[in-house]
């Protein structure tokens, strides 16, 4: 079975380590914040200028001056700090954020990512995504493996305008966890109940299948 949004978030959370500063993109990545293990401290960076983002506020705590990068009202955890957008991207571009998780439309086996624009259709802008993929060393992309019509999104070469070039090394889809190295996808884990053949069929770019591909533990 393909992973649900919640299961994807649970698998993302397995990438967290104690003491990590993490930037979570809008959507599924944000959900991963609900699965930070109790015995671990993770601090969330929001690129609009907040380190130490907390949960959503209670109704009476809502503050128009305190939002996340998705423009949602949020709170701050003890030990949080506030800074300008320039400072925020200095920490992103300077490689100080330990893990970045974001969504994409397409990823290819050269590590290219397309996530911000479908020409003639969707023009909203890249926001901070280009900075995040260029600045972080440890990036995880979360996405669906294929379109609803069954077209692979893990390609030999991205067809959409790129967000970043050669910067993605790890992709989590609803079917599989893959690393990218030397121009190939390397299958690391399967979603529970999903076969290697099924994954291979929906992966357009060159795929390396190691002898043992374990099921994800969630």
């Amino acid at each position, binding site marked *: 079975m393909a992973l649900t949004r919640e299961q994807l978030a649970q698998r993302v959370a397995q990438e967290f380590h104690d003491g990590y500063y993490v930037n979570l993109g809008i959507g599924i990545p944000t959900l991963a914040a609900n699965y930070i293990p109790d015995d671990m401290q993770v601090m969330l960076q929001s690129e609009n200028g907040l380190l130490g983002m907390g949960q959503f506020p209670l109704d009476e705590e809502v503050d128009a001056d305190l939002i996340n990068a998705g423009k949602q009202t949020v709170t701050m955890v003890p030990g949080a700090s506030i800074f300008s*957008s320039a400072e925020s991207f200095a920490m992103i571009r300077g490689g100080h954020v330990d893990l970045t998780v974001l969504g994409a439309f397409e990823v290819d086996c050269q590590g290219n990512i397309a996530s911000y624009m479908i020409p003639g259709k969707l023009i909203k802008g890249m926001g901070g995504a280009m900075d995040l993929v260029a600045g972080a060393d440890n990036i995880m992309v979360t996405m669906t493996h294929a379109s609803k019509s069954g077209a692979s999104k893990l390609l030999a070469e991205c067809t959409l305008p790129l967000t970043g070039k050669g910067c993605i090394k790890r992709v989590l889809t609803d079917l599989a966890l893959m690393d990218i190295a030397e121009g190939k996808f390397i299958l690391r884990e399967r979603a529970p109940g999903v076969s290697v053949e099924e994954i291979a069929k929906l992966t357009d770019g060159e795929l390396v299948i190691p002898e043992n591909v374990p099921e994800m533990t969630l």
Partner: protein
Amino acid sequence: MAGFDKVVTSYTEALEGLEDNMTIIAGGFGLCGIPENLIAEIKRRGTRGLTIASNNAGVDGKGLGILLEDQQIKKMIASYVGENALFEAQMMSGELEVELTPQGTLAEKMRAGGAGIPAFFTATGYGTPVGEGKEVREFNGRHYILEEALVGDFSIAKAWKADRYGNLMFRKTARNFNPMAITAGKIAVVEVEEIVEVGQLDPDEIHLPGIYVNRLIQGTFEKTIEQRTVRSA
């Protein structure tokens, strides 16, 4: 003698000298920390042909979105322009020119503009449409593109508290692009919630020194929330 007193008492005075075809750098992220009364004053003045650099372009009927209603904006430099149907319509019809700029690059372009740095190299956007036509240099085996600084004829921004000299404090994530936007404007106009007397702000707690501020005005703010998201107790 006004000395260092930056306070003006009307929004008309605050934007005196703003003319058609000028460039404005604006603070704010979404509708958070936007100079909403200064934007309203630009609408009232009817200034046209504007180039505006701001992370976002407001939403329909709010923020910079209201300047689209009378086609006052010629060109928008922004990182994210969703949530705005009128914007999309004007962009698709070609009435409105849009330069999509990565958020960090936009912040740094403003910062550089205010700091007298004409351009800088960044890895952001290399190999993407953003990098097209820009100079590429390799440093330590990595590719970087040359991005030019932004300087505006005016900058408009919002802070929380100021003293009369224009020393500023921001509040929570309403800080965002505001400090850099202010530094990048030849005439920097800032509206705040409260103006206190000189000496009442602790110098150690000033986020942006008044040297960058030309005009200061106290206003009242609507502070629209775009995505009111709450948890239950």
